[in-house]
């Protein structure tokens, strides 16, 4: 068995890593015809990964990665290689501008800003703690406590790397002269290793700044004795020479540390506390109580702690979303279903914000790498007629949105327009070039509508959900989805209406810095005057109502109806009575109606996929993302084993549909049998079942030796893939490993 596994050919797969599947063909004479047939290239899954679903001719030639000389790097020529170099280069540059220049820095800035509060709190605690502890000064025992900050980071510790980096920057600034050491559980498996790392880092961070001759003192103390590299005495001597005492040690993933190690370290730090001023920071994923339960009580009492919360992942996600996905700077729009998928993954799975960001980047990469129409996103000056090849035109004509557009214009009796679109390339190109401005207009419209809508606060739910639904359905306050907006608007009192209008006016004036939206007061003269008109009207109504002593109400407000009970002949009669509305009330009702109408005309936006050429700037395919970020090796193995024909495309198994056939690869036959067994598999039974299928008496007619050889090899393969293992219970049995 082992000899078969160690066939040298088996290692050839490394050259073929980029393929979706690799089919092993041993150069053995007894190969069956299925495997010795010319190997079909695994086109289906590879191309499915890179092709936009609605663009049949955008298939890249994935296997022929050509390192072309023009600097386009790994961007391949699309349209089966006929795409011009200029177009490739433009795609590359557009990608680099769209992701690298515009977004990457912004996202980093948003992330850094999100941590700012925590940083300030931790910093001030660290500096106050020492003073406070000495001020408490009841006895030496209290002042010798170690200040400890517990930072509740949430379960995704990987994404807190940035936080600790920032902490290290803030706390080790030159003024305070504290050394910050970051410890991770993987880098500090035991006490010695942890101490070595602490001493190394604490001494190194300073020697970077000072002259080289200081470094010698690290290991040699004042009396010329060499310190062991885990001896804190060395650190003490080093710090004393620099008249600094503070060392801050950050345990980034404190849950993953062995609790014995933590206890040892804390006790050790405590015994040094008078000489070296240690402070500790713990990144805690679960809760402080759980953490405390892991420490000895005597150890826990040594700590003087404070708890800090990091900004919740939700709000970080929202601000990243606002600036990088929804913001006007984002070049590429992510489609609703992909976005929904990304957002759900953030909520359901242990996936930090960094996963979101890299998924975003991957979407950009996929789009610009595999979609030739992404050149249309290039800046105005760069895209000209010459660049658009006949293939581009053809691709555009085969788009879904092109067809819809033509059909719509036929229905609208613009037959000339439709005709020219179909026949006249020049006309189409001019139309395409116009689309750029239309896209920008659409986005502005979308963002303004969303901004106004969130400003009113009438629609519950987060901005992310609102954005996703706006992409699918558009924004239309008169539609079913938004019906509750007006319902709640009508229930508002006069004061609330006034403040609502004020905030709307402010929103128009200021725009939204999160979304990169400028104020658009100049564009919206009509809206602004109309809004202020309504505001003035309501204000005068309010003053008049005050004079008359009647509260101002509209016919929509709940007090409009009064329930009356009358007792007539010992029976109770209930009657609804419409409260009489005064003239002011009627005028107020009118004002509310005006306002809702105004909002419904101004907060409006069609769905994104109704636009002509939206395929060029809306990326909405989920499968590349899922294949890369959520691979499913188990399922893939099982599917390949149960239906090998889908992958091999051999003629012999074409009729078999997921059932057992003698022509299938041996491992696949054994897998099918394996599915029917119990938890212990008798190998001898398995062999006889297999031999009955392929042996002398069957269609295959294999002789016993070659059948046995294949059987052994297949069983070894199953073991390698983790389906069976040697059983200790019975000698001639293997144990089944898979339950699912």
């Amino acid at each position, binding site marked *: 068995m082992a000899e078969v596994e160690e066939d040298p050919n088996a290692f050839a797969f490394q050259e073929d890593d980029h393929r979706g599947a690799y089919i092993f063909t041993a150069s053995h004479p007894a190969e069956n015809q299925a495997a010795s047939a010319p190997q079909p290239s695994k086109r289906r899954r590879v191309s499915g990964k890179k092709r936009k679903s609605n663009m049949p001719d955008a298939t890249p030639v994935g296997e022929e990665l050509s390192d072309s000389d023009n600097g386009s790097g790994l961007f391949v020529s699309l349209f089966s290689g006929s795409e011009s170099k200029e177009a490739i280069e433009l795609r590359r540059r557009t990608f680099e501008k769209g992701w690298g220049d515009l977004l990457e820095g912004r996202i980093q800035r948003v992330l850094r800003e999100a941590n700012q509060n925590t940083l300030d709190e931790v910093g001030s605690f660290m500096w106050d703690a020492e003073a406070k502890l000495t001020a408490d000064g*009841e006895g030496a025992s209290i002042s010798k406590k170690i200040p400890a900050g517990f930072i509740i980071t949430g379960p995704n510790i990987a994404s807190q790397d940035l936080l600790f980096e920032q902490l290290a920057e803030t706390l080790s600034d030159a003024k305070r002269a504290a050394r910050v050491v970051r410890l991770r559980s993987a880098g500090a498996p035991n006490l010695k290793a942890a101490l070595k790392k602490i001493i190394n880092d604490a001494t190194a961070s300073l020697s970077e700044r000072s002259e080289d001759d200081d470094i010698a003192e690290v290991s040699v103390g004042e009396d010329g004795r060499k310190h062991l590299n885990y001896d804190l005495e060395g650190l003490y001597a080093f710090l004393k020479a620099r008249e600094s005492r503070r060392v801050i040690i950050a345990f980034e993933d404190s849950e993953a540390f062995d609790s014995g190690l933590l206890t040892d370290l804390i006790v050790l730090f405590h015994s040094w506390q008078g000489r070296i001023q240690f402070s500790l920071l713990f990144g805690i994923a679960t809760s402080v109580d759980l953490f405390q339960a892991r420490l000895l009580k005597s150890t826990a009492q040594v700590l003087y702690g404070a708890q800090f919360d990091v900004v919740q992942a939700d709000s970080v996600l929202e601000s990243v979303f606002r600036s990088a996905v929804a913001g006007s700077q984002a070049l590429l729009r992510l489609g609703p279903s992909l976005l929904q998928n990304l957002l759900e993954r953030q909520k359901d799975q*242990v996936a930090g914000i960094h996963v979101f960001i890299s998924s975003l980047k991957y979407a950009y990469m996929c789009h610009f790498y595999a979609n030739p129409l992404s050149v249309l996103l290039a800046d105005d000056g760069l895209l000209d007629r010459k660049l658009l090849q006949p293939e581009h035109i053809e691709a555009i004509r085969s788009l879904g949105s092109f067809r819809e557009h033509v059909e719509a214009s036929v229905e609208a009796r613009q037959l000339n327009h439709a005709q020219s679109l179909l026949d006249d390339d020049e006309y189409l190109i001019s139309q395409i070039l116009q689309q750029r401005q239309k896209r920008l207009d659409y986005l502005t419209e979308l963002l303004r509508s969303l901004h106004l809508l969130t400003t009113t606060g009438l629609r519950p739910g987060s901005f992310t959900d609102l954005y996703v639904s706006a992409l699918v359905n558009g924004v239309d306050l008169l539609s079913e989805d938004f019906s509750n907006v007006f319902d709640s608007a009508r229930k508002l009192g006069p004061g609330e209406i006034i403040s609502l209008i004020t905030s709307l006016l402010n929103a128009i004036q200021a725009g939204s810095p999160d979304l990169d939206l400028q104020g658009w007061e100049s564009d919206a003269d009509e809206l602004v005057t109309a809004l202020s008109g309504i505001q003035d009207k309501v204000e005068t109504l309010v003053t008049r109502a005050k004079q008359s002593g009647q509260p101002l109400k509209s016919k929509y407000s709940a007090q409009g109806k009064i329930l009356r009970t009358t007792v007539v002949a010992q029976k109770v009669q209930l009657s609804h009575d419409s409260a009489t509305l005064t003239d002011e009330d009627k005028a107020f009702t009118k004002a509310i109606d005006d306002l809702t109408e105004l909002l419904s005309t101004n907060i409006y936006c069609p769905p994104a996929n109704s636009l002509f050429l939206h395929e060029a700037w809306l990326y909405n395919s989920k499968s590349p993302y899922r294949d890369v970020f959520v691979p499913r090796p188990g399922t893939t193995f099982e599917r390949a084993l149960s239906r090998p024909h889908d992958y091999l495309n051999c003629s012999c198994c074409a009729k078999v549909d997921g059932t057992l056939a003698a022509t299938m690869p041996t491992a696949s036959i054994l897998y099918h049998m394996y599915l029917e067994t119990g938890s212990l598999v008798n190998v001898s039974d398995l062999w006889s079942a297999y031999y009955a299928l392929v042996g002398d008496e069957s269609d295959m007619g294999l002789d016993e030796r070659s059948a046995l050889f294949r059987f052994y090899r297949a069983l070894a393969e199953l073991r390698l893939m983790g389906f069976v293992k040697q059983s200790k219970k019975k000698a001639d049995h293997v144990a089944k490993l898979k*339950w699912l």
Partner: protein
Amino acid sequence: MNNSLFQLPNELVLTTLAQIFPCRDSQIRALATLLYPTAAPCQNLVLYGTEATGKTAITTALLEALENERAEDGPTIKSAIVNSIECITARHLFESIVSKVVHALRWESPPSRCETISQLMVELSKMLKYTPRPDNFHFVLVLDGIDRQRDMPATLLPALARLSETILCLTTVFIVTSPPANFLRTPFVAQIQFPNYTKPEFVAILATKTPPKLPTTTEEETVDLWTRFAGAVHDALARSAARTLPAFRHACTALWPRFTAPILAGTHGPREFSKLLVAARVHFQDERLLDPGIVAANTMIPHNSKLTNGNAEMVKNGGSLVKQPGTRDHQAVGTASDLAVLLPTTARLLLLAAYLASHNTTRHDLTLFSTHHHGRKRRRGGLSLGVGRGGRRSKHRKIARKLLGAHAFVLERMLAIFAAVRREWDAKGAAGGDAMDSDVGMAIATLASLRLLVRVGAGVAGADPMDRGGKWRVNIGWEMVRGLGRSIGVEVEEWLIE
């Protein structure tokens, strides 16, 4: 004058020390006698006693005083104190000893390394034995907390005890918590016990430092009240829980403002001790004094309210001061909800599945998770013993499985349970598909790094964490699991079979 064979150190030194360390007079004198060269210097000396009884402090202070005592042609004492908590390995201990001795003797040429006990012997002999010293020179080497030395070979203590056999002018002092019989393997070792303080001693020590005078009372009244108060605190807390001097002192200083609040408010006079005691009874029963927790700076408000609930309950139960499980439960509910907020859905489901895998036996899996029979027979969980037997216990008393520790399970089984329950428990999130994709793997890895799931069995360090035959154990308790289950609308109890 100094011709006499037996001469104690200057009386002044001893009385000064006795004032600094009250109630330790006999220990100070014994120690001085056994260390002083002209008195009865011994080769090895063991000081033992529980935490915070003054062993280290008295030794340090006494040695310092003796070194500074410059009597004319009196004996000279040098000393070195090594705290073995700071020593990571035995080699580290040896190097520290050498370095401290070098420092104490102002030795010119320090040895570069000292790795074994033999080298230590050589180095110490070089410095102490083969260097001419005055007749009554004596060196004291104090090994503080030597019983807690890490990586200590079994021969270390006997070897250290025999240092002074070779080097005659050396006294080795071992400070330990409780010495086993003959742990130094030497025929005779002098031992001095530092017993914990008794109640009068505690009170006397506290009385040396009274708090500032209360504005409404006289100095004398304050002192009197403080003394009686200290006695009361000792009876309430120190006898059972706060047994050490620092803990007792901390309890006193923390309680004092609350205790004297009625005096400041003018409701009680300083002489009405019993009334004050009754008024402050709740504070005396507050166990936060004993277990302050690690978050001291900005305590969370909901947390506190929970604690006080727990305390109120405790008062009702008769106010026993032993920590009751009830309070821990209250906290656990709080943390469980925290955890439920922090963890994403998949991780929560995995934790619950792991809990079920740990607490149900394999033979019940088919009953619980099979969807084959629709009328699922699921017995409700909970203890079902002795029902209807007229109170007669069966011979085998069964303990509810959830009260027992978690059992180990195979990862594969847990994943099977996860796949079975996720469709039922998480109707909307199941869209993600598949119980085997990498998100699930990531969730398991995260839970493992948070130590909520623990890998058990042999070869934990080297084994592949995703080996599906690996054995795991869930590491959270029932309270948290119940909270987690409720956060996604599942009563975990219904899924547990006795």
